[in-house]
């Protein structure tokens, strides 16, 4: 009770005197950033995921070759989920003598549960979204069907035994797929018309899909239910595996976000450590006095612990309030983006924030407090008596342990956390060494300048250790600001560049070898360029290292899918632009025709392949065995044709397949597809404009979110700067009093202080520019697989801003100290 009272009184007077401002700010910023990031990574990610769910037209999609068990619908109803059904199969559609192979899609009311169907008034014309599905008696047909069958809206179409009226041009279905499997153009009808077509007979190749969507918890429950009850042949498709391109974009967005939150927490930790040192230096005399009057070590420790705990609570409250405000801001910013309901704001981030703040205090403030506890009481007589340093590097162990725990709980990615920690430590060591070198160098420069400069520069080198600490702290703060101001922009711009405006939005698939040359001529004559043609052969993998596929024990639907489904193979003489070799080597000119295969990293991971493994394929009845000669990381979000499996040319020449290519079409060029489809009826046109738009949308919103979160990092950087300025205030106060007593004018002292801070700022700016460039490079290459060029602006901005920012801020912060009449200072001491 008595300790609590002491602690409360201490807290009150420390708050009043502004001593705890830095510590409170650092903790508050950490909490605010954590709660805001918590919001992003859970709520917004859920929103973005819902967007990604469009690809399934649902949150969960169960596909089967047999009618889906009605019990699933009953369970969905019980859980409050919405449900819809889709039945699809290939069939021929007739208009008089003309016919076209089409995918007939029969849907129930409510379809699609996620995303929207788009329709148009003319083939390849401007599309609009609709909430309807075809009325009974209506069909909505793909523009390619209309082009091929020379149809206009209102025409009667013969589908099986039924006559249906062509009511709309079908432009886009959310679940039309992003792979190259759904090649045939689609015709959408109401499921009520299906019996009249009489097309479903025993042996028909019908795919039945049950669609479910609703609240995340209910979806999770339904997912468990389906996994437990689904029969052989029923496949559960989920958002996560639905689209590699979308996932790649979401993955990068969340990495940006994690990075931003890691950076703010790291910086806040530095500020907390500095704030704690300051706390100790301000309290050490009082502690010595209290111990002189009989206070025990336990009393001293518990008093400061209680005080800091109270401070932590205050910080959590203030930070959570700020975080909540940020949440509202974000929700407002992203209002248009997230169509699905955002889960309500919960109190969930609060305990996480509290635990993190405690971990920060334990890691970065407790060591200082433990030292404070052992302040020798004789300090009341001898000012030089200091508390002994902690044994066994306890401080470092605590700090590293806490940091690891905090970072890991944030991102749950041991490798990322370890590399960030190693990077931060390495940076710390490099900054410290460079700081020492610069400080020594500065000491030699002080001859031949005015008295104020000489005093300032002399101070930098005289304070040695303290100067290095300040340079490192300023350097860290500035580095973050630079990373934010310049590198972040570059990284985001690079990301946007990875999906340029003219990224291919149409794929032409199923081009027969003899059509290749005429098609190239067609494209050239219509001003559509000369895109690269990729050969394609369909094949199934039959054995790995001689073990037949059916005897392989593989975990996960993905791996089984790779084995069961036919894959598209291609061959290429050189590595595709969006591919990066991560193991093995690409074939040389001498190796063309050799039985090698290059696999993508997803394929390699799913099947557990390594270099040298022998893969056996069945290519149209022929057996081919090839050895894995390289593993590629594929940029799926580049939207150029990419393949899991690539062979050297000359190996598959006999297995004549088809070709594919991709091109960018402006909205004005799209109508030319009508001619193309007529002239090359077997070529399938595949439009990915919608998904491109989705990804761009995610990029834009994620950039916005990242910038928002980086605001907290910025705040943390500024707090570090403040902490660094505050750390030497007492010393400066005393020195300025002494100098003024010796006859120096206030102006001279102030100029000296300005010179010192400007020098410190210049030195930190140098280090910060160096650090920001290095980190930017590492981030771009290791984390984001982006190309990053060093930006000379980093150096310009770093040096100028460093000198100005630290110079001005330091001088302003110290001005009051210099203005204090010397007698007041000297008497206080």
């Amino acid at each position, binding site marked *: 009770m008595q300790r609590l009272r*002491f602690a409360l009184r201490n807290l009150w007077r420390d708050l009043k005197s502004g001593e705890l401002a830095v510590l409170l700010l650092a903790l508050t910023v950490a909490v605010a950033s954590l709660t805001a990031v918590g919001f992003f990574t859970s709520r917004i990610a859920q929103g973005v995921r819902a967007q990604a769910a469009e690809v399934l037209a649902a949150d969960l999609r169960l596909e089967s070759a047999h009618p889906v068990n009605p019990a699933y619908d009953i369970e969905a109803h019980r859980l409050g989920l919405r449900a819809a059904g889709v039945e699809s199969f290939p069939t021929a559609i007739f208009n008089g003598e003309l016919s076209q192979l089409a995918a007939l899609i029969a849907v129930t009311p409510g379809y699609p549960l996620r995303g929207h169907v788009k329709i148009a008034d003319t083939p390849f014309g401007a599309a609009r979204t609709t909430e309807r599905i075809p009325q009974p008696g209506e069909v909505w047909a793909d523009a390619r069907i209309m082009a091929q069958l020379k149809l206009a809206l209102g025409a009667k179409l013969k589908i099986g035994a039924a006559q249906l009226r062509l009511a709309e041009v079908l432009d886009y279905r959310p679940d039309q797929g992003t792979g190259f499997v759904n090649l045939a153009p689609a015709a959408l009808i109401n499921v009520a018309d299906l019996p009249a077509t009489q097309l479903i007979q025993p042996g028909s190749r019908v795919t039945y899909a049950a669609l479910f969507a609703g609240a995340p918890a209910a979806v999770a429950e339904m997912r468990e239910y389906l996994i437990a009850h689904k029969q052989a042949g029923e496949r559960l498709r989920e958002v996560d595996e639905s689209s590699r391109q979308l996932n790649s974009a979401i993955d990068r967005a969340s990495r940006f976000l994690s990075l931003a939150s890691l950076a703010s927490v790291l910086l806040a930790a530095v500020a907390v450590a500095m704030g704690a040192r300051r706390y100790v230096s301000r309290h050490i005399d009082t502690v010595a006095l209290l111990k002189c009057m*009989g206070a025990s070590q336990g009393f001293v420790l518990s008093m400061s612990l209680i005080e800091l705990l109270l401070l932590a609570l205050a910080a959590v409250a203030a930070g959570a309030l700020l975080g909540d405000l940020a949440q509202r801001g974000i929700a407002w910013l992203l209002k248009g983006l997230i169509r699905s309901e955002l889960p309500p704001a919960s109190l969930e981030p609060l305990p996480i924030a509290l635990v993190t703040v405690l971990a920060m205090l334990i890691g970065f403030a407790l060591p200082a407090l433990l030292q404070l506890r052992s302040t020798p009481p004789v300090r009341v007589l001898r000012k030089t008596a200091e508390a002994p340093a902690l044994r066994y590097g306890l401080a470092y162990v605590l700090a590293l342990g806490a940091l690891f725990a905090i970072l890991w709980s944030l991102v749950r990615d041991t490798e990322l956390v370890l590399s960030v920690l190693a990077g931060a430590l390495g940076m710390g060591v490099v900054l410290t060494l460079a700081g020492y070198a610069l400080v020594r160098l500065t000491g030699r420069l002080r001859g031949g300048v005015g008295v104020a400069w000489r005093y300032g520069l002399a101070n930098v080198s005289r304070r040695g250790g303290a100067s290095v600490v300040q340079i490192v702290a300023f350097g860290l703060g500035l580095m973050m600001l630079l990373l934010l101001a310049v590198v972040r922009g570059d990284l985001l711009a690079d990301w946007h560049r990875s999906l340029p405006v003219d990224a291919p939005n149409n794929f032409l698939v199923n081009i027969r070898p003899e059509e290749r040359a005429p098609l190239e001529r067609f494209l050239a004559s219509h001003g559509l360029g000369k895109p690269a043609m990729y050969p394609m052969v369909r094949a199934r993998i039959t054995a790995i290292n001689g073990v037949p596929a059916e005897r392989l024990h593989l975990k996960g639907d993905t791996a089984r899918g790779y084995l069961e489904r036919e894959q598209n193979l291609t061959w290429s003489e050189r590595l595709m632009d969006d591919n990066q070799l991560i193991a093995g080597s690409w074939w040389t000119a001498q190796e063309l025709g050799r039985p090698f295969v290059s696999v993508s990293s997803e394929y390699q991971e799913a099947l557990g392949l390594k270099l040298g493994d022998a893969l056996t394929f069945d290519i149209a009845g022929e057996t081919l065995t090839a050895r894995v000669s390289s593993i590629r990381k594929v940029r799926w979000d580049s939207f150029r044709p990419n393949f899991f499996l690539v062979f050297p040319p000359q190996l598959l020449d006999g297995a004549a397949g088809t070709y594919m290519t991709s091109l960018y079409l402006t909205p004005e060029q799209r109508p030319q597809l009508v001619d193309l489809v007529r002239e090359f009826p077997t070529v399938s046109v595949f439009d990915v404009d919608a998904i491109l738009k989705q990804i761009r949308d995610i990029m834009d919103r994620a950039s916005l979110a990242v910038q928002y979160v980086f605001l907290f990092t910025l705040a943390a950087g500024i707090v570090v700067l403040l902490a660094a300025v505050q750390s030497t205030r007492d010393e400066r106060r005393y020195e300025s009093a002494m100098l003024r007593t010796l006859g120096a004018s206030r102006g001279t002292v102030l100029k000296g202080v300005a010179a010192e801070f400007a020098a410190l700022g210049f030195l930190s700016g140098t280090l910060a520019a160096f650090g920001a460039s290095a980190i930017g490079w590492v981030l771009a290459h290791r984390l984001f697989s982006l190309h990053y060029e060093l930006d000379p602006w980093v150096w310009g901005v770093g040096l100028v801003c460093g000198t100005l920012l630290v110079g001005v801020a330091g001088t302003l912060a110290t001005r009051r100290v210099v203005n204090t009449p010397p007698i007041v200072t000297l008497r206080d001491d």
Partner: protein
Amino acid sequence: MVLEASHVTKTVTSPEGPLTILADVSLAVRRQETLAIVGASGAGKSTLLALLAGLDLPTSGRVSIAGIDLSRLDEDGRAAVRGAHVGFVFQSFHLIPALTALENVMLPLELHARRDARSAALEALGQVGLEPRIAHYPRQLSGGEQQRVAIARAFVARPAVLFADEPTGNLDTHTGERISDLLFDLNREHGSTLVLVTHDRALARRCGRLFELDAGHAVAAAPMQAQ
């Protein structure tokens, strides 16, 4: 004997090797005695004071307060002895700047969870003539006033031994005299033992006994006239 030091030696390590600050000093102080430790700068006066008050430990030798051997105690044990038996007055006052005069005086009592802290502190401040200034912060007080607050704080817990380290060192002659009057008067009133370290020969002469140090060695312990 309320205070006893026998064969106390204090050695510290310096860049030039071990440095002996106090060499084999022995001293015994009776209850209610007043003792001045004098000597030139660097003679080891403050070190001896720190050892006698249990603020520091001797390299060898033994110190006891009120019959309790300090060398047998850990730091918390020594703190408890100080809290129960010892009061301090320092040259630079050592008031806590963020506390009012009253709060500063209440501090040692609050550390012992005394319920009457406030009334006892008010009484102590009354004894040093500072009732009108109880709500003032140290920076609003003159040097003499600050030292009077420090004296009130030292006596408020009724210590058996009061240690004073150059109590008038930061004050002008006139104020210094008034402060030392107050110190001796209160000491007599409370029946406590006073050990003071000073350069000031006049102040030293007011003590019952003089203990002189020279380069860490005891020179002589001359009895002076009784108070």
